[in-house]
């Protein structure tokens, strides 16, 4: 079924919308949640919550790309769940490693200079991504959006793990520079 037809079902408040969305994008959402949570059951619960959120938010929202809309919902829900689980000293997946890597962008205790968020932050990140070469951008997104493992990315692109790490390191430095520049402008 076409995405637009599925969205129409949401607008019609037909429960078939959830069935169709799950059939088409359930595995995609599950793989995102699993990368973050590292648990089959927790990921299943997270994906179920995604459908509920979609039900609650469509309408009024009419997503242009249903797949990424559901993907974003899943990612946010999984990260929230990860925080809950780690507060209980549980949980797994790639998240702890990714967070550790992002400390290199911000410094060990965060960066007080970066007080901007919302749309300004979104613009900085989008501009930063737009400035990367395609493969470098894909590798960055696989690691920090899909939270794929370095091993998986290396296998996917047919390159060595060290090359992936090198690419990520360069990207993090570039992001750090972009954030520093915005902080200066903001200040």
């Amino acid at each position, binding site marked *: 079924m076409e995405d637009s037809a599925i969205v129409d079902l949401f607008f019609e408040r037909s429960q078939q919308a959830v069935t169709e969305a799950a059939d088409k994008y359930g*595995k995609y959402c599950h793989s995102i949640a699993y990368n973050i949570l590292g648990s089959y059951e927790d990921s299943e619960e997270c994906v179920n919550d995604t459908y509920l959120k979609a039900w609650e938010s469509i309408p009024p929202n009419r997503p242009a790309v249903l797949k990424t809309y559901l993907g974003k919902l899943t990612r946010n829900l999984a990260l929230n769940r990860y925080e809950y689980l780690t507060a209980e000293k549980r949980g797994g997946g790639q998240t702890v490693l990714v967070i550790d890597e992002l400390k290199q962008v911000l410094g060990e205790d965060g960066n007080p200079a970066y007080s901007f968020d919302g749309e300004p932050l979104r613009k900085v990140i989008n501009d930063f991504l737009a400035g990367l070469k395609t493969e470098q951008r*894909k590798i960055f997104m*696989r690691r*920090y959006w899909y939270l794929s493992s370095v091993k998986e990315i290396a296998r996917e692109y047919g390159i060595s793990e060290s090359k992936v790490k090198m690419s990520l390191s360069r990207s993090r430095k570039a992001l750090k520079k972009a954030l520093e520049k915005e902080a200066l402008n903001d200040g």
Partner: protein
Amino acid sequence: MMDEKMLLKALGDVDESFIEEADPSGSCGKSKKTAKILCAAAAAAVTVTAALLLQSGLISLGGRETVILQNGEEIVFSKGGDFSSFSLADSNVSVRELSSEECSKILNGLPFEGTARFSSEGEHEIFGIDGKINDVKISAWRTDDMYMDTVIVGSEKKSQVDGISVTAGYFESMPNSRGEVTVIYYASFKIGETSFYLENAGDKKDGESIREKLAEALSEIIEKGEPDFSAVKY
């Protein structure tokens, strides 16, 4: 003050074109070991008391587990390191629930329940079937038009069952918040022009029974031979 968790969340709100560009399901890497399978559709489980065909000899050495069939042949399941499935485009496919009569005919009398996938255009040719035999998910297809791309990472072991080459493996999830681990056993093989993918999953503590159920379904399908897709019309 921004911390790394805030940054990670902020990264989630980037332009959708970047998300799509890096979509794992849209990039079939050249170095991946892939097995293309049809998506197993949800179907009601059937409870059938079947004679136990198997005698299980559990051998668990170096991430391999073995089921020994009654005829002495064995299926070796190799442990995989990763398992991920992605939906491929399926806009040209129509799915229909199969009647019990059709189910019985298509898999030569086996207790199968499920659906069939047809081309939504032209002659409405049948692509394949998805369903279950005794909780074991079954997909069978004849064409290259797949709806799932399952990436299997890790060593695989081929076994021979009645002259059919069977590739089998299993995966274990990380423990959930209750400490439970899910184990997923799978097997793929081809009879004539028809490819099969079987999968059975559940709590690891029931692993032996889960593995045996899969081997039992596999053994029965191979014994019955190639399915008769002509028994189903759009």
